[in-house]
C-alpha cells in the first residue's frame, strides 16, 4: 500500500514536471534547438526512470504520446521530436536485442537485409512484419526488468553525445579551413559555428566575413563578430546585401542550421537560402555544421509551414504608424536551403554529402516513429 502511494506521488511529481516543460517550450522559454534537445532528453530520462510497464509496447506508446504533446506545443522546434524518436529507436533496439538473444532465431531473421527482397520473402520464414511481431508476442516477463537500466544507459549516452557535439564538430575544422582562407558565415547566431571557428583559429590563420542577417538577433550577430575578433581572427562584418559583391573572394561558406531534413535540405536563419545560392553561382563550397539532434526524419513537403515568422516590429518601427497600418510587413526567421545548395554536412558523426543524410536518418530513427 505504502509503496503504491509513494509511486502515485512520484507520478504526480513527474506529471507536474512534464506540464511545466510543455509550458516552457510553448512560451519559447527554452530557446535554441540545442537547449531543447538537451532538456527533452533529460525529461525522457526522468520519464523512463519513473515508468512502469509490463510490456515494452506500453513504454513505447507512453513516450509517443508524450512526444506528440511536445510536438504540438512547439511544432517548429524539430529537435524535440528528433530526440523522442531517437529514444524510441533505442527502446525498440534494446527490446529486439533481448528477444533475439533469448529466442535464438535471430540468425534466421537477419540475413535477408535488403528491403527489395521483401517482394519475395514471406511471413512464415522471414516476414517483413518481424519487428512488430517480436514486440508484440514474444516479450518474456523477465525482460522489462532487464531492459530499464539499458534504456537509461542509452539515454545517458545520448545526453553525453549532445554535450560533446560542438567539440566533435569543431575538431574537423582543420580539415575544412586552410591557411589564409576567407570564410563567410551567414548564421552568426550559431553556437556550433562559433566554436568551430574559434577552435580552428588555434591552428590556422584565416579571415571571417560575418553576415548580419538583419533584423533578427542582430545583437547576437555583432557579439559573435566581437568574440571572433577578440580571439585574434580577422573579422569583417558585412550587411546581407553585400554578399554577392564579395562572394567571389570567399573560400568557403560555413553555416549552422536550425534543422536538417531527411532529404539533406535544411532550415537555417533567414537569408541563408539566398546566400547559399549565391555561393553556388560562384562555385564556392557550402559547408554546414550540425549536431545529429537537428537531423529530422521529415521530408520538406510544405516548406512554408516550416518557416516561422517573427516580430514585424523589428523590420518597421511601430512609430511609423501610418505605414504599419497600410503595408504588410514580413519578417521570416528561417529559410529552407535545398540539398543541392549544400556541398558538405559536418556532423558529430563525421562529414557527409547531403545526398547521404537519408542513411543517417535510417540509422538513428525507425520508420514507424516518423509520425509520432
Amino acid at each position: 500500500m505504502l509503496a503504491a502511494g509513494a509511486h502515485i506521488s512520484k507520478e504526480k511529481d513527474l506529471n507536474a514536471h512534464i506540464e511545466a516543460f510543455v509550458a516552457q517550450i510553448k512560451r519559447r522559454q527554452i530557446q535554441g534547438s540545442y537547449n531543447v534537445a538537451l532538456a527533452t532528453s533529460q525529461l525522457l530520462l526522468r520519464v523512463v526512470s519513473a515508468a512502469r510497464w509490463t510490456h515494452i509496447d506500453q513504454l513505447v506508446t507512453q513516450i509517443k504520446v508524450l512526444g506528440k504533446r511536445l510536438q504540438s506545443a512547439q511544432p517548429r522546434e524539430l529537435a524535440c521530436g528528433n530526440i523522442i524518436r531517437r529514444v524510441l529507436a533505442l527502446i525498440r533496439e534494446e527490446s529486439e536485442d533481448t528477444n533475439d538473444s533469448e529466442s535464438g532465431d535471430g540468425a534466421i531473421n537477419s540475413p535477408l537485409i535488403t528491403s527489395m527482397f521483401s517482394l519475395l520473402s514471406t511471413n512464415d520464414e522471414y516476414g517483413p512484419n518481424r519487428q512488430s511481431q517480436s514486440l508484440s508476442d514474444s516479450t518474456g516477463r523477465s525482460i522489462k526488468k532487464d531492459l530499464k537500466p539499458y534504456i537509461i544507459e542509452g539515454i545517458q549516452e545520448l545526453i553525453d553525445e549532445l554535450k560533446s557535439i560542438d567539440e566533435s564538430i569543431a575538431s574537423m575544422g582543420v580539415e575544412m579551413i586552410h591557411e589564409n582562407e576567407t570564410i563567410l558565415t551567414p548564421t552568426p547566431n550559431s553556437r556550433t559555428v562559433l566554436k568551430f571557428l574559434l577552435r580552428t583559429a588555434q591552428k590556422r590563420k584565416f579571415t571571417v566575413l560575418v553576415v548580419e542577417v538583419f533584423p533578427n538577433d542582430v545583437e547576437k550577430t555583432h557579439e559573435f563578430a566581437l568574440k571572433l575578433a577578440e580571439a585574434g581572427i580577422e573579422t569583417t562584418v558585412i550587411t546581407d546585401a553585400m554578399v554577392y559583391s564579395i562572394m567571389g573572394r570567399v573560400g568557403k561558406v560555413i553555416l549552422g542550421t536550425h534543422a536538417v531534413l531527411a532529404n539533406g535540405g535544411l532550415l537555417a536563419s533567414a537569408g541563408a537560402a539566398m546566400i547559399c545560392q549565391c555561393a553556388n553561382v560562384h562555385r564556392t563550397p557550402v559547408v554546414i555544421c550540425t549536431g545529429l539532434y537537428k537531423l529530422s526524419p521529415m521530408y520538406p513537403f510544405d516548406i512554408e509551414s516550416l518557416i516561422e515568422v517573427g516580430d514585424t516590429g523589428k523590420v518597421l518601427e511601430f512609430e511609423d504608424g501610418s505605414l504599419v497600418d497600410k503595408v504588410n510587413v514580413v519578417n521570416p526567421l528561417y529559410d529552407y536551403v535545398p540539398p543541392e545548395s549544400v556541398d558538405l554536412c559536418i556532423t558529430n558523426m563525421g562529414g557527409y554529402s547531403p545526398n547521404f543524410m537519408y542513411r543517417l536518418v535510417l540509422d538513428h530513427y525507425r520508420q514507424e516513429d516518423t509520425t509520432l
Partner: protein
Amino acid sequence: MPELSAKVALAPPGTPTPKGQQQKGIDKNNAETQGAKAQRKAEKAARRAAKVSEQGKSNKPPLEAVAPGRVQSQAKQGRTASGVGNASSGGGGSTNSVGNVTAGNAISSLTTQGTAIHGTDILDKRVSLFKHLEITRRSGTADAAKDIHPAILALTLQFASYTVIGSSARCRATLRAFQTVIKDYRTPAGTTLSRNLTNHLSRQIDFLKTARPLSITMGNAIRWLKQEISVVSIDISDDQARESLVEKIDTYIRDKIEVADRVIVQSAVKQISKGDVILTFSRSAVVEQVFLEANLRGIEFGVVVVDTRPFYEGKEMVRRLSNAGLRCEYVLISGLSYVLNDITSVFLGAHAVLSNGQLYSRVGTALVAMSAKRKNIPVIVCCESIKFSNRVQLDSVTFNELGSPDDLMNISIDSAPKPGPLKNWRDLPNLKLLNILYDLTPPDYIKKIVTEVGSLPPSSVPVIIREYNSA
C-alpha cells in the same frame, strides 16, 4: 600602396599639399568677385542642418584615443593586405583599364581631401580587399577653397549626408547647382569664358567629389556641359553665353531625365497586368513612377519592396506607393526567398549600366536578380540612357564606393541612431566593418532594360552608347 596613402593621410592638419596652396592663391581673386552674401547665408543654414544629422550618424571616437596604436596596426595591415590584394588584382585583363580610371579618381580626391582630419582613423580600419577605394566622405566645409560656390558647398554636404541620394536626383541637383554657379560666374580679366569657366567648374567638381565620387549620370552630364562650354562662341557676350548655357542645362534635364522618365514609364507600364505581384529593391525614382502610373490606370497589382540596411531607401518607396493606395508588402533582404514564391516579375532601377551589360546599382540588387533568375522570374531594369557608361567592369570590388563603416554599428531601424554591441569596434584591431554602396549584377540575370530609346537586352548596351551618346 597602402603605406603610401597612409602617409599622405597622416600629414598633420594645416599643412596643405602644394596643389592646395596653389588653389588658394587663385581663389583670392575669384572670391572677391563673388559677392552673393545673402545667398551664402542661406546655404550656411542648410549646411548646419546637414552637419547636425551627419554628426548624429557617425559617432566618431576622438582622434587622440586612436593615435597611439595607429602606426603599428597600419604596418600590420600593410602586410596582411598584400596577400589578398594580389588575389583580387588577378581579375583578368579587361579590368585593367578600369583600374587606371579608379586610380586617377583616387588621386584627385586624395589631394583635395588630404587635410581632412578624420580620414586617418578610417584608413586604419579599412578592409584590405577594398584598400584601393578611398573614403571621401566629409563632414565640414571649413577647409573649402574660397572660389567654391556656396551652392556647391551646400550640395556637397547634402551628398555627404545622403540627403540627396539616387543617381538621377544627384545629377539633377548638380546641374541645378551648376546653373547657379554659371549665373554667378564672372570671367576674370585676360581670359575668355569658354576657356576659364571649364576650369572654374572643374574646381567645383573636385570639391563635390570630396563628399562622394561622382555618379555615372553626373559624369555624363559634366562631360556634356564641358563640351557645350567649349563651343561657346567668343563673339557673344558673357551675359548671352551664361543665359544660353543655363537654358541648355534646362533642356538637358528635361530631355535626359524628365522626358526620358515619362517615355520609360509609358513603355514599362505595359509590363504590368492585373493580378501581378511585382518585386522591387530599394528605391528607384523611375520604377516608382511606373508603379504609380499603373495604379492610375486602374491596374490591380501588388508590390513587394525589398529593402536593406543602412539607408532603408525602400521605406520611402513603400510610403509613397501605399499612400497612393497600392497594395504593398515590405521585407528586408534576408527575407527575400520567403516572399519570392508569388512574384510575377522584378523591376529594378539602376545607378549605371556598364558597357559590358553589367548593372551597377544599390548593393543587394545582384542578390535579388540572382534569386529571381533562379525562380525564372523575369527581371526588368528601368534606366535612362544617361546612366549608360562606356566603362567595363567584372566584379564589385575593383570599383565601388565606400560608405561610413559606422553606419553598420548603428542597429536602429529608424532615424534615431542606436549603437549596438559594436560601438567600440575601432578598439579591436582585428574587427572591421565593411560598407560598400553598390554591386554589379551580371547581364544574364537581366531579361530586359527599358530605356527612353526603347527596350533592349543587356548585350545591346554598347550599341546605345555608340548610337545615342556620341550624337
